[in-house]
């Protein structure tokens, strides 16, 4: 590798990493947190069998899972302005990623909640607890334990998917890399470099998942 390219890579590393820290990570963290709120609510209205809301939840999951996230980004950012809804790139990306991720995590949460034996719900009723109390103290903690590995998986996928936000002009890592590459024509080394940074982010998340699972296991129940 020529010295020129090496220098370029060294120089661009921080240039790419900074939007990674300033944009990619916040985009992932905010979107995933909102996705979890959506997921838990969506899973719970289905579990509680609330007519109307339950059908709405199924409809939401059906639409979101059945369409590409890239198309969803385009609809929100380029499409909605024509009906007067104008969002800045970052909030638009947050909206799309949390709604999209929420649908997938909702299914994970629903399966996890349903895997808690219904007998524990009945036992809760029999000691005088209300449905809410049982959900909060008995069912959800166990469901989160079960859902933790697949949810971590979704979070790792989301880190990488945020690169799609480049399409709606969010200046995250990939967009930054594209710009440098367009200027320098060093496509292969630069795209490999950004891939490496994504790999580092995913690896950190994987390590966090391991540590999280260890802590959950140490917490006794399995």
């Amino acid at each position, binding site marked *: 590798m020529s010295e020129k390219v090496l220098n370029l890579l060294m120089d661009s590393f921080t240039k790419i990493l900074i939007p990674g820290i300033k944009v990619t990570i916040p985009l992932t963290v905010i979107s995933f947190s909102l996705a979890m709120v959506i997921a838990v609510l969506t899973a719970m209205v289905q579990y509680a069998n609330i007519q109307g809301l339950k059908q709405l939840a199924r409809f939401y999951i059906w639409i979101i899972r059945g369409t590409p996230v890239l198309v969803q980004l385009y609809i929100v950012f380029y499409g909605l302005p024509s009906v007067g809804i104008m969002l800045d790139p970052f909030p638009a990306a947050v909206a799309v990623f949390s709604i999209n991720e929420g649908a997938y995590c909702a299914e994970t949460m629903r399966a996890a909640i349903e895997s808690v*034996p219904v*007998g*524990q719900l*009945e*036992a*809760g*009723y*029999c*000691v*005088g*607890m*209300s449905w809410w*109390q049982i959900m909060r*103290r*008995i069912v959800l*903690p*166990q469901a989160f*334990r079960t859902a933790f590995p697949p949810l971590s998986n979704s979070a790792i996928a989301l880190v990488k998917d945020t690169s799609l936000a480049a399409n709606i002009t969010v200046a995250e890592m990939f967009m930054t890399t594209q710009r440098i590459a367009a200027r320098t024509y060093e496509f292969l080394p630069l795209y490999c470099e950004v891939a490496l940074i994504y790999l580092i982010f995913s690896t950190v998340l994987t390590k966090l998942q391991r540590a999280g699972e260890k802590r959950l296991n140490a917490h*006794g*129940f*399995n």
Partner: protein
Amino acid sequence: MLEVKNIKKSFGDLQVLKGVDVRVEKGDVVAVLGPSGSGKTTLLRCMNFLEKADEGILNFDGEEYDFRTIGRKDIAKIRKKTAFVFQNYNLFRNKTALENVTEGLIVARKMPKAKAKEIAMAALEKVGLSDRSSHYPHELSGGQQQRVAIARAIATNPEIIYFDEPTSALDPELIGEVLSVMRQLANEGMTMMVVTHEINFAKNVSSRVIFMEDGEILENAPSKEFFENPKEERTKAFIKSIAEQHTI
């Protein structure tokens, strides 16, 4: 203390309870016997509203409720005065033995934590598990789990405890420890209604025996009378068949 009149329940086309009457006085230990599928579990579950009965009247502590119209508040009120022990324990798997017992006190009855803990430890002591209080359910044997479940039931100081085949899921060598706890409760005057296949428990511990078949009560008599002088032919045959099973 407790009376159920003409309780009926169907699952789809299958009528599982065809108008059953039960009366339990304070201190009674009622054993419910009967072949598989006769509706014993369904009866207990309806009595504690885990299943919604189609028809019937419940008299509890002098107050009358209609199973068709009883509201959430009354159900909650009655459940706080009763307890249920399940065939497969149904312990909260994310809680320790102690927490399983305190949960109903702290969360449902808003009892101060220290007091709840004290009561729970006494309950665990009673079932012989004070040294297992910080274990999680998966760290306990089936017999120990069922004894925690019994501790959870008695901690709330219920007026009656319903047991649904509390020893049926247990290995034979673990049945004794659970039965002896139940016998002790009976001796202390706890009111109990016990669905069981343990004929010796029905014979030696219970004060009354109810024999169910096909969603109906065929015979309802004091324990001694039931075994020594059964009236119904079907009851005689059932007692005989069980006696034979026990000699194999």
